[in-house]
């Protein structure tokens, strides 16, 4: 079932009595979730992703805005009438009931026409149990299960009433690294097999990227970008999104745009001409989160003056302060390359190797470049530097003040 969040806002009253400014946990969020897809709500803690989830299932009421399931407005509908299954972060399995009783529990609440016979209930419980592969654990108590098994039971309990929407709150955060990897594949498989529209919340970008059909990146209650994981990674709308996605994280430098080139420190690392329409589109970056729409938006405004070629930030001397993000895989080793960094060490990772570097303009202590392992013995020049060319599609330029993306000519 399609889910639409329209202008969704949640405010919590302030605890500060002298200055009662409400805390805005979720700020005018618009998301359209297609039917049968797996959506990852992604962001650092406190970004409002869990609050959004709780509003979806009805445990919290939005301050403003609407939620639609299909064509039906469910904004004020009680949780039990929404037909959602929720898997809690710590599973919330009833500790005094066996796995079987836990899974049967939602079915035993059915009333009237929906009421099932004992045998039907058992059949359905058996079915979901085999789906999540816990059939042999049915008579155990939750305390006798491992974290991963509890996780499956929780999913089974959420699925057994055949919900229209499955919600998962940080489903993997209580599992160890290996189990996490395995379980996220499981979630993907179960979602594919049941075809239920699924929304899950996570702060782990790798987790979200690996299994989602679509990710929604949030920060401080505001949606930063929505899109397919690869699209968002390849085309971040702002510095936050660029920094948040990717392991190892993106390298961030202070830079300048002048003379049609991108400068990092004193080095003109690559040619860069700002797209004409950039000037105008920048205002809308947050609203129309899908970055690819922006050129069109700009085209609709023909009264763009000629002066736009000179960016407004520092129009007089033709210098524009920017922040440059370079993905670790965006470096090409080239002794004649334009971008030089001081080599500190090399980390071997088997297929690849990771050059740990320093650069004066970098915002962090180290710069990380991932290159083919064959180059691991690359010797620095007499100044201790390694030189690179940059892959243009792995370099993102952001405005130094607004941190919004500046698009350059291909």
């Amino acid at each position, binding site marked *: 079932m399609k889910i639409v969040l329209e202008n969704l806002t949640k405010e919590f009253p302030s605890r500060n009595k002298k200055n009662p400014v409400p805390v805005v946990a979720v700020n005018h969020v618009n998301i359209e979730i297609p039917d049968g897809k797996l959506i990852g709500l992604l962001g650092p803690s406190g970004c409002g992703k869990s609050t959004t989830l709780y509003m979806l299932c009805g445990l919290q009421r939005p301050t403003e805005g609407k939620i639609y399931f299909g064509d039906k407005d469910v904004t004020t509908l009680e*949780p*039990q009438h929404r037909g959602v*299954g929720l898997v809690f972060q710590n599973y919330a399995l*009833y*500790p*005094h*009931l066996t796995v079987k009783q836990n899974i049967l*529990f939602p079915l035993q609440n*059915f009333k009237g026409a929906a009421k099932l016979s004992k045998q039907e209930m058992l059949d359905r419980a058996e079915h979901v149990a085999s789906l999540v592969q816990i059939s042999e654990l049915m008579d155990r108590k939750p305390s006798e299960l491992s974290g991963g098994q509890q996780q499956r039971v929780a999913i089974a*309990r959420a699925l057994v009433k055949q919900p229209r929407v499955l919600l998962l709150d940080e489903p993997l955060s209580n599992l160890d690294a290996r189990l996490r990897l395995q379980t996220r594949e499981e979630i993907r498989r179960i979602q594919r097999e049941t075809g239920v529209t699924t929304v899950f919340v996570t702060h782990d970008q790798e987790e979200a990227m690996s299994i989602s059909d679509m990710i929604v990146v949030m920060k401080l209650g505001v949606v930063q970008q929505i899109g397919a994981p690869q699209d968002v990674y390849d085309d971040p709308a702002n510095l936050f999104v660029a920094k948040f996605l990717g392991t190892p994280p993106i390298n961030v430098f202070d830079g300048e745009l002048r003379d049609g080139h991108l400068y990092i420190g004193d080095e003109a690392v690559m040619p860069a001409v700002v797209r004409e329409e950039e000037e105008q589109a920048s205002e809308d970056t947050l609203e129309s989160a899908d970055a690819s729409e922006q050129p069109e938006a700009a085209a609709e405004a023909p009264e763009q003056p000629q002066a736009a070629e000179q960016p407004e930030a520092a129009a007089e001397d033709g210098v524009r302060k920017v922040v440059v993000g370079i993905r670790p895989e965006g470096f090409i080793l080239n002794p004649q390359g334009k971008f030089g960094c001081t080599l500190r060490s090399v980390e071997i990772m088997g297929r690849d190797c990771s050059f740990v570097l320093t650069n004066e303009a970098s915002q962090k202590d180290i710069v990380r470049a991932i290159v083919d392992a064959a180059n691991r013995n690359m010797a620095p020049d007499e100044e201790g530097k390694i030189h690179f060319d940059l892959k243009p599609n792995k370099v993102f330029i952001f405005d130094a003040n607004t941190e919004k993306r500046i698009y350059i000519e291909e």
Partner: protein
Amino acid sequence: MAADFKQKISGLFKRGSQADGDIMVADRKALRRAPKIKDNDLLSNQRHGWLYLAPALFLLLVFSFYPLINTFRLALLNGYNAMGAVGGEKFSVGIENFKVVVQNVDFKQYLKNTMLLCVITVPISTALALLIAVLLNSIKALQKLFQTIFFLPYVTNSIAIGMVFNAMFNRVGTGDLIVTQGIINNIIMLFGGDPVNWVNTGSTWGANMFVVCAYIVWNALPFKIMVLLGGLQNVNKQYYDAAQIDGTSKLRTFFRITVPLISPMLAYVIITSFIGGFKEYSSVVGIFGEKMGPPASDGQMNTIVGYVYSAVYKANYGTASAASLILFAIILVVTAINGYVSKKRVHY
């Protein structure tokens, strides 16, 4: 640059070693001051342990263990009484005391009273306490205030409460000269009922029982509410969220989730109130005074502990000990049953 780095590193090391040196000197000084470690160090440690335990152990020996053992001894000395013992009388060993207690008609009545008090008050007060605790837990405003109000009886003297209960049920005056029927009767009459003789001369055993039970239930509530409220507040709210999303009715949530999750507290409350019920005494004294019954019906509401006390007053330590041991056996059996049931019913 490399030389610079070397200097920095060596500087670091120097500073490090200096700091280490300081600590070592301090350690050596401390060692000199400290007593030398001996082979029997462990033993002296134990000696210290026993020394610290001694005061409590001494008091326990004198006031708990000795009386406990002596009770068994006295109960098994036929016809043991204080006067005889002082006079140098020798007592044979046997179960004479138990026979005396069991064959006593009054004791049977007291046993019945005590049993009934337990059976009536424990379920009522527990259910009532659970209800109040759930209600208290579900309100936000004034929760602390109500908590305090419900806790007040706990800090009030039980004899004083008994006297107030007596006043509430007491009729003052006789025949045509009735000063008051007592507030409870006034309420009954307000609703068109006939006044009941609760505690006065000629009042029935049933009426007496009702008053005592009301007193015990009311007096037992605060402690139970506190324990159960503590249990309720410890229940993870997510279980209720999960139940709500699954459309669980309030009643089913209560019986299938709340009650099982606080079952350890419930078991604790039930076991302790059974034990307390079998030891009931001060409530009856509070309401009826030392006669343990309405005027002219002495002992009508007496309990096992009351029987023990009166035997002690009469210096019949043998029968008092025997009655105590019978009470002990009853409590032991009931607690064992409670324990067995709760093992099956109490989760985790």
